[in-house]
């Protein structure tokens, strides 16, 4: 199908994009890579009257260390992140997750920030930023603010971004030598949306791990922490962690997998990721 008619504006600055958003509110959508949005437009699942293109805004394509975090601009594309030595060194969880996202042609256009802002329940990026305990920077009519990933994902495609807010970047804590990361997902074919996925971080402590953060995707309305399993894993109780998923998660079956299948796979992934968390990333 073809998109319905829309007006289009190329913003030259964040301020201009936010002002245009403020004028048009819910009728307007921001387009960055467009790899989810244009598909929705083509299928007419979404029919905004205005598209605000942010691709020409300078300064949003940078990956840089700022203080104690890695800042990833809103226009950084998956391929760019995968090729970045900064991402490889300071955010190895992303380096592990991104190859699972779609295919080369889509990774060349799709942005990390767009995926976080869109908050698809089956997408990898929201779970990664949640597992990392990162945050997003957004610009709105009242200026810039920072929203922690823990407060960001509210429901199905629903985030803490207001109708006139624009995500301008992601902020991730820097990987340290105590940091541990894990990532696994099940998809029927490489590049498909996962039936179940898990992104995880922890900190090595003594012979074990602490500060475990498990962020599941494709098992609910949005990326979801499994807090009961986190506590069990922190005391080395893998089977207890798998059992805790029964209360942590409440997936709904879909055409790809029943609820029971998803719960089973969530446990399988947890065992795999627990093994990854026990060793330093290579």
């Amino acid at each position, binding site marked *: 199908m073809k998109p*319905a008619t*829309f007006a289009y504006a190329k913003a030259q600055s964040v301020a201009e994009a936010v002002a245009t958003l403020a004028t*048009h509110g819910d009728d307007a959508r921001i387009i960055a890579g467009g790899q989810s949005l244009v598909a929705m437009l*083509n299928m007419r699942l979404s029919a905004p009257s205005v598209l605000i293109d942010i691709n020409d805004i300078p300064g949003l394509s940078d990956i840089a260390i700022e203080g104690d975090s890695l800042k990833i601009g809103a226009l950084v594309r998956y391929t760019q992140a995968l090729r970045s030595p900064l991402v490889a060194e300071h955010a190895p969880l992303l380096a592990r997750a991104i190859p699972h996202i*779609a*295919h080369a042609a889509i990774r060349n256009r799709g942005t990390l920030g767009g995926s976080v802002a869109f908050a698809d329940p089956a997408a990898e990026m929201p779970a990664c930023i949640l597992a990392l305990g990162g945050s997003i920077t957004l610009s709105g009519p009242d200026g810039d603010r920072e929203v922690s990933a823990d407060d960001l994902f509210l429901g199905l495609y629903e985030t803490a971004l207001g109708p006139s807010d624009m995500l301008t970047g992601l902020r991730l804590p820097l990987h340290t030598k105590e940091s541990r990361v894990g990532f696994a997902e099940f998809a029927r074919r490489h590049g498909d949306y996962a039936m179940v996925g898990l992104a995880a971080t922890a900190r090595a402590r003594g012979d074990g791990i602490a500060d475990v953060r498990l962020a599941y995707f494709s098992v609910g309305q949005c990326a979801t922490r499994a807090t009961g399993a986190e506590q069990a894993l922190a005391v080395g109780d893998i089977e207890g962690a798998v059992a805790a998923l029964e209360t942590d998660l409440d997936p709904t079956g879909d055409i790809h997998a029943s609820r029971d299948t998803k719960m089973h796979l969530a446990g399988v992934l947890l065992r795999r990721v627990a093994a990854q968390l026990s060793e330093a990333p290579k």
Partner: protein
Amino acid sequence: MNGDLETVFDVTLTVNGVEHSESVEARRHLADFLREDLGLTGTHIGCEHGVCGACTVRMEGEIVRACLTLTVQCDGKRIETIEGLSDSGEIADLQEAFRTRNALQCGYCTPGMLIAASALMAVEPMPSREEIRDHISGNYCRCTGYQAIVDAVETTLRARAEAAR
């Protein structure tokens, strides 16, 4: 509702080395622009939501989905399609291998398959069959002739490695 924002734009794109200036609706995606406005029908449209890969083209040297790229976003950009890649001879050996290995049946996926494969071949001199399969997993062949497609890519890479020796 749109205020004073426009819905139609004048754009200039360089397609296969030739500059084209056209007036397009903002909603026109690149695949339709190439096919309908420029008559370059080698770029195919399958699913029109980024899944099948039949519309794969190069933009600024990197492969993209033409169905997920708005033409207005390509203003000032360099686009290459299967017509350009065929005329330049860049993938003549791969095309010949597709023919001799029977790597196409109905041929619908072939332009996208060739462009996607060429992107891998440009950066990986000798990928494994598994890596080839991974790379073309975003390109569907509904005749399901994947085995022969992987064969053709592999054969071409071997021949190139041999020739480079």
